[in-house]
């Protein structure tokens, strides 16, 4: 991607506290970012209600290997524990951040470059899972669906994703 200091690309998980389709209000997120001077750096972020604001945190460590698991978990008392890193450890804690009980998980990539910059973005998210209040983990499978956001100008490359419901994974790839 262009080394312009303003653009970035991520691969990540968002856990938003509303339906998320038309935009999230409050959330936690965790993944890997490149651009803005970073190269495959682990990061996490949250946006909290009641004036809490938006916060993002970048680790100095570079994501290597893979697949690399990530997780955001509501642990009660308005607290979320954030897991990631190359060794899948807790890399952060978000407090004063209540769970709505009706949120939605989103998985995928985000990029900010304009078409024609020759950025390549290839990747996928696998084994999409959620945990019930009883502590049981379930695959998303047919509960999930693909969404391609943004409005591509006509006749320009655009990177779209594809969700495989039977395999429970989302993949994307292309040049923008």
């Amino acid at each position, binding site marked *: 991607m262009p080394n312009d200091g303003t653009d970035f690309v991520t691969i990540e998980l968002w856990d938003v506290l509303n339906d998320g389709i038309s935009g999230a209000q409050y959330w936690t997120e965790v993944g890997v970012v490149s651009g803005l001077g970073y190269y495959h750096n682990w990061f996490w972020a949250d946006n909290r209600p009641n004036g809490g604001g938006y916060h993002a945190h970048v680790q100095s460590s570079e994501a290597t290997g893979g697949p690399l698991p990530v997780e955001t978990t509501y642990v009660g008392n308005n607290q979320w524990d954030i897991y990631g890193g190359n060794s899948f450890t807790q890399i952060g804690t978000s407090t004063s951040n209540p769970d709505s009980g009706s949120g939605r998980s989103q998985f995928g*990539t985000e990029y900010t470059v304009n078409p024609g910059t020759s950025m390549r973005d290839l990747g996928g998210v*696998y*084994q999409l899972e959620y945990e019930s209040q009883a502590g049981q983990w379930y695959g998303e499978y047919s509960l999930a669906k693909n969404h391609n956001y943004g409005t591509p100008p006509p006749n320009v490359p655009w990177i779209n994703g594809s969700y495989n419901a039977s395999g429970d994974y989302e993949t994307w790839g292309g040049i923008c």
Partner: protein
Amino acid sequence: MGIAAVSLAAAAVAAPLATSSAASPPSASSGIPATAAQRLTGIVARAAEMDGDAKPVWIEAVSTSRDKALAMATPGDTIPGSVSQPVYLVVMKGNFTLNDFSTPPNTRAPTGSYLSLTYDPATFLVMDIGITNDPPPDPLQSLGPVSTLAQQK
């Protein structure tokens, strides 16, 4: 749904890491060296412009540890191992819209009157970002000598 997990696998081509500074990382609570303050001034001025306010009311900076900086910049967020990490904490007041970091799809960029950033003293890369309408819970002076990087008259 309050909990989710996923495995990531990606290959995205991106910019290399920024070049390292020749300056030695400071110890927490020491003042910011003049050369570092000068470099920070340029970096944060660009950050302010990118985030919608090229002329903040003021920009202040202090050298501290990352855990103390988080308590000011992103109160409520904690990071394991941050006690031993030195950072430069920069706080600015203005009208900001955070255009240059990740948010969920179709979400409006976060806005606020206070933009706080922590920088790695060795690389001058941003480590933490906070944007709110409330000032930090305590004066930056409580962390050590404060450098004023900009002040509108």
